[in-house]
């Protein structure tokens, strides 16, 4: 029991994933700043942001709407992200091998944060938040099928093993999946899916600062918003980590392997940052069409190619 709690709260769960996620958030902001002729924040800025929200800023609750649900939603979201993170990172860091079928558990746990954003937004009773929530819902409907197809294709590639550690092991033996044509297609699909899960431009319709002024999160402030922020930091680490584990043969944490591990994660985050800085926000209809037709099509092609072992 003690070990499980340690894994969940300290390493590689809440604390570790939160810290690495914060550093990646800094990397994202710094690269964005460089692209935009700005200087960018200092290394610890994401942590200052978090601590200020957590400890200093006042938490304002909406006068109308369900306060209990409003407060519980971010906690659930944080729990979901941390649990998913633990299941992803345990096999990645070679701490234990997980269990047969943990891939599906990861898939479901990764949906929880987005769902709690919707619940929290609807509980706040704000009209802008409700528009944000309805957009988030539409976005989930469109990318979740693509994400499932992505998982299915990976499982197919790994000889139908539904276990994270075995997927990584197979790549260690026969080269990373991304070295095949279907792997490249799956990488593209995967990057766009996690972009949408992170709510980064071009898929930030639910927040849409200049349309809905932060939409789903408009009523959040202080400590509760700190939890939302922490959830996003964690997601910014575990989603690229998932992609690395599924397609770029995971981490090898010995000797120069550590540098490679860091570079792999940074490369995926860099790609996401560049996508978000070279595109305007799509309309929700366009985003749905992009996933339902474009990305699903690409995923299906990847699955067919996998059957032909390309």
């Amino acid at each position, binding site marked *: 029991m003690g070990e499980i709690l340690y894994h969940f709260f300290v390493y590689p769960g809440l604390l570790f994933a939160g810290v690495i996620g914060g550093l990646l958030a800094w990397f994202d902001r710094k690269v964005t700043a460089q692209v935009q002729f700005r200087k960018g924040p200092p290394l610890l800025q994401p942590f200052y942001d978090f601590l200020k929200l957590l400890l200093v800023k006042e938490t304002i609750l909406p006068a109308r709407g369900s306060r209990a649900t409003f407060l519980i939603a971010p906690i659930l979201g944080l729990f979901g992200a941390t649990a998913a993170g633990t299941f992803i990172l345990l096999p990645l860091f070679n701490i234990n091998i997980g269990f047969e079928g943990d891939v599906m558990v990861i898939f479901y746990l990764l949906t929880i944060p987005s769902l709690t954003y919707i619940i929290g937004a609807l509980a706040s009773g704000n009209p802008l938040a409700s528009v944000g929530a309805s957009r988030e819902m539409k976005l989930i409907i469109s990318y979740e099928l693509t994400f499932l197809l992505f998982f299915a294709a990976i499982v197919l590639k790994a000889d139908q093993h539904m276990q994270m550690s075995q997927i990584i092991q197979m790549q260690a033996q026969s080269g990373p999946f991304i070295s095949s044509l279907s792997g490249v297609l799956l990488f593209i699909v995967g990057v766009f899916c996690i972009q949408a899960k992170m709510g980064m431009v*071009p898929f930030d319709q639910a927040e849409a600062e*200049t349309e809905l002024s932060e939409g789903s999160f408009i009523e959040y402030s202080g400590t509760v918003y700190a939890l939302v922020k922490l959830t996003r930091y964690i997601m910014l680490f575990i989603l690229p980590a998932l992609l690395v584990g599924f397609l770029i043969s995971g981490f090898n944490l010995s000797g120069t392997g550590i540098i490679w591990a860091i570079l792999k994660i940074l490369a995926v985050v860099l790609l996401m940052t560049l996508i978000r*800085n070279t595109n305007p926000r*799509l309309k929700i209809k366009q985003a749905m069409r992009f996933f339902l037709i474009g990305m699903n099509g690409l995923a299906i092609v990847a699955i067919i190619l996998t059957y032909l072992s390309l």
Partner: protein
Amino acid sequence: MIHKMANQRIIPVGPYHPLQEEPELFKLYCEGETVKDIKWETGYNHRGIEKLSESKTFEQVFFLVERICGICSTSHPFAYANCMEEIAQVEPPNRAKYIRSIVGELERLHSHYLWLGLAGHFLGYNTVWMWAWKYREPILDLFEIISGNRNSYAMFKIGGVRRDVTGDQIALARKTMRDLKKKNDLLTKAVTDDPVIHARTKGVGTLTKADVMDYAAVGPTARASGWAIDVRRDDPYAAYDMVDWKVITADDGDVFAKTQVRLLENYESIKIIEQCLDGLEKEPEGDIELKVKEIPEGIGTGRAEAPRGEVFHFVKTDGSNSPVRHKIRAPSYVNIATFKKACVGQTISDATISLAAVDPCYCCTERMAFAYDWHSGDKIYDGNQLVERSRKETERLKNTL
């Protein structure tokens, strides 16, 4: 005040909202994501400039009207100067005309870049925002070197300008324009070739030529719908009839067309500035103003093409040293009315960028016609009563001295 809402909910844009820098309130009556109706409320920004102008001398009014708007801070003095010169029956020397046109066009350039950046921001494309504003910087630096200020240049006076543009400044201006042309090429290419920007702006907020004529829209809003109106060509002032340029129009009337018109107008502005710099070199240095001693009794009107459209000033004088009546009409006053046509029937995402596409400026536009009680809707003051009250207050203050 009460709007019938069946399945509708109000999505408020404002009074303080990241979409607009200024306080104003747009109520979007939405069914789902579709905007069914739009109402707007201004009045957060009223400063009583017209009334204030009546208490200033003619020269002081320049500094006052310059502060109506921070972005088009030269178009108001421009129109006011045209207006006062009509009353005083004077015409400034050619060198002053060239300098006026240079300042006016530099302002158009920086304003269009500012809009382009903001439009990028409104679409969630923050890189365009930062790049456009970065490229705007050299223009503001040039302003600082020419006039001493990045904004609010204080260059205009009745019968001429306050500062000459000479030697080094001309060379620097030429260099800035050369660099700017390259940057404008890059931005035009980046914006007009991006398929995602096409997807977001084409067919959005469309105004037909008939619409803009009905609403009497002005400036790029009208020109993007194929209505070629431009005060610089239709009623030439300053040096605009001495240089060669053309009015840019587009036919589609959507947000993309408005972007295109502004980007192409930048090339025309650069062209005008370069020709004005040539003109400056032919005119004798220092010949920048006429001494105007007396402003006779009379009325005058002045127009100028601001970056957003036509600015109109009307002044009535009585032979004293300050206006008796000063009426200002800014371009946003007519352009804002097109929102109803542009936004209704679109989604919220399209409506917000359509709101921004006319480059509205609320502080120019706000007027007070009457004051009413928010709850009952009863009128408290009308215009005349307000003037009456203002005079009484002034009287009271004078008596206490």
